[in-house]
């Protein structure tokens, strides 16, 4: 994992001092509210329904145990003792006081953390696959490139006031895309060309929100060393030509659409031609230097513990289920990737208490070289667990509330904070998630349904990724009443697609029944191998419509 050197440390310390000064000037009335607004947003602070919220950056989702413990302490000392894992791999505090934020940032800086550019019209946290570096099918570890992008985008002097927010995601696996890259402003797929050289396929102009779009490819192969100059060219074109007259049309996806992907690509290439050999061009040494931070931990030379696990599974059915669903194959023999689900029924998805943060830190130290990853599904991953200790780990997880063996099932719901916390909400989202989790509490039934993503957003802004859920739920306002619109067939994977709206919306108390009917149609129509998405794509939306609105 990346470790700060004196340069990073100095810049983060200066940033804290700068924000302290800005906060004081704001409180003293020297900065008008609209002048302070982008400054505080770029420090992660935005004001919500009940209180300010502070979004803390977790670069590409990686956290060390000391950082988790510090977060726990901060939630205790400055907040109400809990935090929220977001869909962008960050951590959010719901109740900090404005005056305390500079102190919170100073505490974060001590453990190499910050809240830079987690909000505002700037380049946000770069995200990636939570299994980066430990899965066997990736072309190379994407995290060094994320870190390189993090450094380049941090306090970039030209791009601090873009037309709108800007998000970059990187993926390195050819089979899976856990980073949802095609739904980002820039999605980078690491590839090798025919000559075997490493590079990126560049997608630009994806996004959710009120105009969801899947990002088209604007360049099939970008050589590795050209990464930053090419990003700079894209950003410059966007900074100059992205719309600034209408907030809802300001994302880069609108510009790409207006110019057509081809026209946009031409503009980028023309800009890039001027700067591709500028000092911003990466060097092999610079990349190697960052890669050196992401070396393997001190793995033991182990064999797969197949026999042991087989016996343990045989003796313990619940362990067997957990292993099947929440544990993934590791590239290293004898190790496994474990996902802790933050989806216990009755707890808002992604919410963790200070005590749980400390428990996760302890688990990381005991089982996974002191590191964890936050996922965009709002879960937490222990990436390097010895197979012969899985049972021991599993036994600890149940009481802590992280052992629900529902990963990637219908109840592993992605859910935004919604009307309980968010001023923009049309409707609450958390109670809907809970009602659905209560309705589908039979694990065997969930396993039988296989992989289904149910995503809930409280409004068009789509923080809960409803457009890309196999089943998406969107809160809408109907004459002051909270209603929910359903869409089907979304995906954020390599085959990314935007879900299609089923029809008129429903009241909250109808939701579990409606979901049950949709599931029913799938169960009746599917063939033996089909996932929900496969069936939907084969039979189309009509059978679902007929059943739900019968």
């Amino acid at each position, binding site marked *: 994992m990346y470790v700060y*050197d004196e*340069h990073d440390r*100095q*810049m983060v310390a*200066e*940033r804290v*001092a*700068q924000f302290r000064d*800005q906060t004081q000037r704001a409180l003293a009335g*020297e*900065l008008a509210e609209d*002048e302070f607004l*982008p*400054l505080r947003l770029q420090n992660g602070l935005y004001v919500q329904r009940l209180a300010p919220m502070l979004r803390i950056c977790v670069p590409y989702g990686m956290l060390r145990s000391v950082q988790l413990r510090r977060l726990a302490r901060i939630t205790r000392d400055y907040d109400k003792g809990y935090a929220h894992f977001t869909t962008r791999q960050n951590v959010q505090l719901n109740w900090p006081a404005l005056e305390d934020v500079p102190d919170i940032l100073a505490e974060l800086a001590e453990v190499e953390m910050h809240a830079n550019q987690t909000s505002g*019209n700037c380049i946000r946290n770069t995200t990636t696959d939570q299994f980066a570096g430990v899965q066997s099918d990736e072309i190379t570890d994407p995290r060094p490139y994320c870190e*390189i992008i993090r*450094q*380049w985008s*941090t*306090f*970039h*002097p*030209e*791009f*601090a*006031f*873009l037309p709108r927010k800007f998000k970059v995601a990187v993926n390195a696996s050819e089979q899976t895309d856990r980073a949802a890259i095609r739904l980002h402003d820039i999605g980078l797929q690491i590839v090798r060309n025919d000559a075997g050289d490493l590079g990126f396929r560049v997608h630009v102009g994806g996004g959710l929100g009120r105009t969801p779009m899947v990002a088209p490819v604007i360049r099939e192969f970008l050589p590795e060393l050209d990464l930053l100059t090419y990003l700079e060219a894209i950003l*410059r074109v966007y*900074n*100059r030509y992205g719309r*600034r007259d209408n907030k809802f049309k300001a994302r880069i996806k609108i510009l790409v659409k207006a110019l057509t992907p081809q026209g946009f690509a031409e503009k980028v290439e023309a800009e890039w031609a*001027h*700067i591709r050999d*500028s*000092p*911003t061009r*990466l*060097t092999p*040494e*610079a990349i190697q*230097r960052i890669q050196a931070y992401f070396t393997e931990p001190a793995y033991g030379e182990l064999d797969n513990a197949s026999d042991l696990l087989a016996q343990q599974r045989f003796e313990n059915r619940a362990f067997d289920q957990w292993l099947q669903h929440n544990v993934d194959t590791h590239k290293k023999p004898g190790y496994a990737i474990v996902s802790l689900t933050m989806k216990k029924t009755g707890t808002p998805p992604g919410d963790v208490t200070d005590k749980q943060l400390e428990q996760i830190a302890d688990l990381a130290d005991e089982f996974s070289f002191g590191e964890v990853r936050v996922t965009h599904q709002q879960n937490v991953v222990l990436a390097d667990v010895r197979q012969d200790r899985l049972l021991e780990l599993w036994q600890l997880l149940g009481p802590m509330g992280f052992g629900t063996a529902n990963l990637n099932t219908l109840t592993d719901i992605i859910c935004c904070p919604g009307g309980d916390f968010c001023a923009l909400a049309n409707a609450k989202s958390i109670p809907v998630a809970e009602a659905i989790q209560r309705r589908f509490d039979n694990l065997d039934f969930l396993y039988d349904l296989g992989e289904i993503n149910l995503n809930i957003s409280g409004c068009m802004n789509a923080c809960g990724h409803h457009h890309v859920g196999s089943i998406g739920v969107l809160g809408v306002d109907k004459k002051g009443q909270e209603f929910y619109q359903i869409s089907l067939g979304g995906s954020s994977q390599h085959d990314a697609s935007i879900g299609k709206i089923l029809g008129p919306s429903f009241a909250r108390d109808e939701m579990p029944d409606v979901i049950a009917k949709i599931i029913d149609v799938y169960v009746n129509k599917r063939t033996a191998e089909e996932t929900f998405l496969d069936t939907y794509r084969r039979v189309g939306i009509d059978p679902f419509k007929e059943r739900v609105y019968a």
Partner: protein
Amino acid sequence: MPDIIFRDGTVHQNQWVVVPRPDAGESLDIPENRRALIPADLWLAGREHFVGKAHIGVWFDSHDEPEILAGHVNELPVIAVNFPKFSDGRGYSIARLLRERFGYDNELRAIGDVLLDQLQFMKRCGFDTYELRPDKDIRKAAGALNFFSQGYQAATDTDLPLFRRRAS
């Protein structure tokens, strides 16, 4: 006229007036005996007349294309870029293009909604004088220009991004 800040943080008397774009049908109203910044496209249209005049400079608005002056930039003593609203970031790209693409060497000035917290970004993008909005405390400008002692990126102020400095 409000004072002007130099990139070293010192404060100087402003010598230049910004001449607004004339309404349709009106002609440019360049004041007598004053140094004047006129809209860049109008300078270009009357270049024969203006070129070589040390008391005439130009200004760009944030939606203007600096490309129109390619090849001519160093005929100008001052180029200003307007920030109609501080949150309109196009001026930063315009500045870098003028410096890095078109090789502009003379004074590059930020005008309009110029506040304290953006000064260092402006400096890094190649601006070397700043007309701070008059209600802002000009004594705080020197500090704001140097809040960060270094940056990660190459920009107009340095050819050495941090990854190149780390290597050496």
